């Protein structure tokens, strides 16, 4: 077997080379992952916080949310967003598959983020909550000024692995033909028959992306670490 890396300089039949297509696919992967992360972090932060409130119904809602999105495979959730929800809510029919995949991946990951945020808030000593309330702060004030600022700094390390997972999970978007890396790998392999070169390039980009996120999050971790707090690592 011989290498044939020139395959990336070949023309795709459109007016671009496979290398240009690969780069745009990488862009789509990053876009899906980044947008889904915004959705996941926003929803996860809210749902995770609700699960620690004294209101039973809010807690139940949060628990149901987490169980719902954790117990259905991501691929099936993507099909739900792509086929089922637009059939029920006609307005969603006009949305491009990129948006639907972002919502699917975002909601799926929000359950995991919510789990980490809940654990983060519950790891704070009860005294902090009582101290806030005893100072005369309302419950929302206690959350905003006392509990959440601490909790969000504590949950950065577990969120690092979720951020890396979202890159890997974005690969499932191939199923609804979003032109991201995995979709590129499947199509370019078929068209060029140079599967090994194509897969190596795609796999390499996934690893580079994951490593980059790991480094960025390590920097964030260092910046926001609570001094003297056990469990923050070195």
């Amino acid at each position, binding site marked *: 077997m011989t290498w044939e890396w020139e395959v990336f300089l070949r023309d795709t039949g459109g007016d671009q080379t496979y290398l240009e297509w690969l780069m745009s696919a990488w862009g789509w992967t990053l876009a899906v992952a980044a947008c889904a992360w915004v959705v996941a972090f926003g929803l996860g932060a809210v749902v995770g916080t609700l699960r620690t409130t004294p209101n039973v119904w809010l807690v139940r809602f949060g628990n149901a949310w987490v*169980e*719902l999105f*954790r*117990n*259905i*495979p*991501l*691929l*099936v*959730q993507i*099909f*739900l967003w792509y*086929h*089922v929800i637009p*059939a*029920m*809510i*006609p307005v969603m029919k006009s949305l491009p598959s990129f948006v639907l995949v972002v919502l699917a991946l975002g909601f799926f990951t929000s359950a995991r983020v919510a789990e980490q945020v809940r654990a983060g808030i519950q790891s704070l000593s009860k005294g902090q909550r009582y101290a806030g309330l005893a100072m005369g702060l309302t419950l929302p004030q206690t959350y905003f000024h006392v509990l959440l600022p601490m909790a969000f700094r504590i949950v950065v390390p577990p969120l690092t692995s979720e951020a*890396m997972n979202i*890159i*890997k*999970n*974005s*690969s*499932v978007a*191939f*199923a609804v033909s979003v032109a991201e890396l*995995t979709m590129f*790998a*499947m199509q370019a*392999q078929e068209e060029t028959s140079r*599967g*090994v070169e194509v*897969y190596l390039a*795609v*796999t390499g980009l*996934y*690893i580079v992306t*994951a*490593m980059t996120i790991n480094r960025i999050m390590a920097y964030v971790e260092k910046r926001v670490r609570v001094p003297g707090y056990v469990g923050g690592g070195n």
Partner: protein
Amino acid sequence: MGSLDLSFFTWDLVTKFLIKGFLFSVELTVVAMVGGILIGTLLALMRLSSHKWLIYPATIYVNTMRSIPLVMVILWFFLLIPFITGRPLGAEWSALITFTAFESAYYSEIMRAGIQSVSRGQVSAGYAMGFTYSQNMKLIVLPQAFRNMLPVLLTQTIILFQDTSLVYAVGAYDLLKGFETAGKNFNRPVEAYLLAAIVYFVICFSLSFVVKKLQAKIAIVR
């Protein structure tokens, strides 16, 4: 709001389309779990040994598998297995090999944590009794590691069951494919995907409920 029509969902459909797919999903889960735990335990022992020539290959293998998306691993094996065996094996066999190889990396991390959770004193005590390394592992460390990690191993297995739906990428006939095929045949894809989601949810939710109970039970004994 469109209306759902579930009248196509009959027993006939279950036996014709779903059973075959369900059985394959279960087979894939069980094979990858058993194979993954066995190979994963070996990988964990390699990583915890004191020989560099054992530590490096195991570490590289585990870290590589864990940093690549599962879909890409499925595609890689589907591409490479025919090169190695000389003939195409079909999507189902390819999936069995892929999932065992992939999951062993994840199970190995769990087993490594499990082995490290057994206190050093127990290992030293074993050596003091005159046990060899393999006796120590087989009789003292691994049984406890396995027991400590049982809930985590089972949770990983639930994730594995969910991940089996990704064989979609190479067209193997699993539970999801069964629903999809049925939906196409009766021209009711929306209902088929909805039912698929419900079935997956019921299975995974019940399993995680069982794991939660088990976790509570084990925690008391310890």
